[in-house]
């Protein structure tokens, strides 16, 4: 008995160390990728001058602008939205009790994209501008519309496979509507729209980073505060209910928070695929646990690293030509999802 207790004690200590190691590695990776990102671009600026620009703001005007107005906000944006994507996916996986759920595969991102496209073309065409907050609201409305559709289907179709097919179909419908609008929109309106509808972190500026950080930050704190009921929900709805979780309210919270997070991503960067599925999975494997109280912050960090790395690849792989962010996240994320599927079959 003594020996068993000692062994268990050691294992528990080992687990704590493992959590700490994962967080340390993620933090280090984030710092590293930020440095790499600032350091690379089609205009070569030596590290010494970059450091000086960041710390003092002094330097050649063109270089200061590249660093402070282009590269830095873009990195921040990719990190913040990456974290948001990972959490959005994590919430949907909790909701559906299935690790393959995510905002992109369920068509929620596409719904948000369609609704942003409509607002851009109709409102911007008529009134000239729309605030980033307005875009987030539009994206949220679109995300909720898709979600409502998915929920209606999930009532009729119990298995996940049917649900995923429905999600992919709604994704196609929304994309078709978006393409239709883009095709018939005035040329001036779609200058940015085309790039955005494919997904990209380019063109991020400080005000939009601020808005995104505020929304994502607030939503992420709410998600973290939900870690206790999310943990109970891992055992299934009936158990969660018996432990005192208000199921209706809780499910609503999951859907709304997930919608806000993915809407925010779509409004600022367009649809970004697979991060929401791949990152929570990888993080759980790295931590060796599903406990939400550790998984949630780690998934946020992991999503940030994943998207910052993807953005670096998107910018640099075929520089000066930029890739869509989804091109990179798909190449990195889809194999992870396939691996998950194969593993589940066994």
């Amino acid at each position: 008995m003594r020996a068993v207790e000692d062994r268990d004690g050691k294992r528990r200590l080992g687990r704590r160390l493992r959590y700490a190691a994962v967080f340390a590695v993620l933090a280090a990776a984030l710092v590293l990728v930020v440095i790499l990102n600032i350091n690379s671009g089609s205009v070569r600026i030596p590290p010494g001058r970059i450091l000086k620009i960041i710390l003092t703001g002094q330097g050649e005007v063109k270089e200061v602008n590249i660093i402070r107005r282009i590269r830095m906000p873009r990195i921040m944006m990719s990190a913040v939205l990456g974290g948001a994507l990972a959490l959005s996916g994590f919430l949907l996986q909790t909701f559906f009790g299935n690790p393959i759920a995510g905002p992109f595969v369920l068509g929620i991102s596409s719904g948000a994209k369609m609704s942003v496209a409509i607002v851009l073309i109709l409102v911007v065409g008529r009134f000239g501008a729309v605030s980033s907050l307005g875009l987030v609201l539009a994206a949220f409305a679109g995300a909720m519309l898709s979600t409502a559709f998915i929920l209606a289907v999930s009532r009729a179709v119990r298995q996940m496979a049917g649900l995923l097919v429905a999600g992919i179909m709604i994704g196609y419908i929304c994309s078709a509507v978006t393409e239709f609008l883009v095709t018939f929109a005035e040329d001036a309106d779609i200058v940015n729209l085309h790039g955005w509808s494919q997904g990209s972190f380019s063109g991020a500026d400080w005000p939009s980073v601020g808005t995104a950080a505020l929304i994502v930050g607030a939503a992420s704190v709410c998600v973290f505060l939900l870690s206790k009921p999310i943990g109970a929900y891992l055992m299934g709805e009936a158990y969660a209910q018996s432990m005192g979780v208000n199921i209706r309210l809780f499910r609503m919270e999951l859907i709304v928070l997930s919608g806000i997070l993915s809407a925010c991503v779509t409004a600022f960067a367009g649809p970004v695929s697979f991060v929401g599925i791949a990152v929570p999975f990888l993080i759980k494997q790295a931590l060796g646990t599903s406990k939400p109280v550790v998984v949630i912050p780690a998934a946020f960090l992991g999503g940030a690293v994943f998207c910052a790395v993807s953005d670096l690849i998107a910018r640099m792989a075929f520089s000066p030509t930029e890739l869509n962010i989804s091109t990179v996240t798909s190449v990195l994320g889809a194999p992870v999802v396939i691996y998950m599927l194969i593993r589940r079959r066994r």
Partner: protein
Amino acid sequence: MEKSYLQLEKAAVGYAGKALISGIEIGVKKGEIVTLAGPNGSGKSTILKSITRQLALVGGDVLLDGRPLAAYSPQELAKKMAVVLTAGMRPELMTCRDVAAMGRYPYTGRLGILSGEDERKVDAALQMVNAGHLAERPYGEVSDGERQRILLARAICQEPEIIVLDEPTSFLDIRHKLDLLSILQRMAREQGITVVMSLHEIDLAMKISDRVICVKGASIYACGTPEEVLRDETIRDLYNLESASYDALTGSVEMAAPAGQPQILVLSSCGRGIPVYRRLQRQGKPFAAGVVYTNDLDYPAAVRLSAHVITAEPFAPVSDAVYSEAMEWVEKCGRVIDAGLVTEGGNRRLADLLQRAEELGKLESTAGKVWTV
């Protein structure tokens, strides 16, 4: 009369406002073990789900500790009632201890982080279900029996006054069934925890329950102590047993007796006939059994499996009438199997039966060998 801890008053249960079973009147006292028995699909789970508030009541009322169930907040109810359910997810990357620790949910803070005291209670609960050694094993990888014990530990962690279990013994082998039920019995006796569960093993229900509630069709079929409820006829009716039979006293189940005119006589005593009866049943051969005292172990099985039983009253040598009846059967049957008939003491003349069979060349014996037909 002692007050009921859980009281169902004219309760109607069902789905989507449609009553499946109505007029349920059950009163369960504190520390009692009450079992819902009945065939598959009879609505046992529906009643349990209504008690745990997973389903809204269609009509009537459920009182828990004197208060209507609906008046409890989710947190209040979670501190009074815990559940063990058949269906449940198997979360990945969670240890058995993690799962058991979830039971502390109603007592932990905003983020659900366990205090030292919580940790001790989780350990104690795991010890109680003899699962201390499983603590750090992945929950998804333990056996069904172990998983069921972990789920019970989870419920114990919730420190409930009442525990509701939906077919907790399904998928378990006999040893794990008994282990689980013993733990429940201990909880009820030692800690006064009320246990309400559904079981489809009627024999186990009878042995562990203070009261049994039989559910069939649209109402409660019968309700009372096991002795009152679980009579042979009740069970035959409850489960629509037409061919096979159930012995309520011993909890033994026998297949239907082979039909037809018996051509074989089995002579035995002291329970030695049972294996022979069962083998003949499997082969579909009708037989007569004798000479069996009504208090012999062979008797209940003989009554259920044979076409005719030559019966003797206990505590006396067999009467002349029984002796001659047995002799008639020896003459009549084509084969006589001696499965170990006692021909000592007051019953020396029973040896005549064996001798007569021997003379007729009909006698087969199972003594000292593996018996084959």
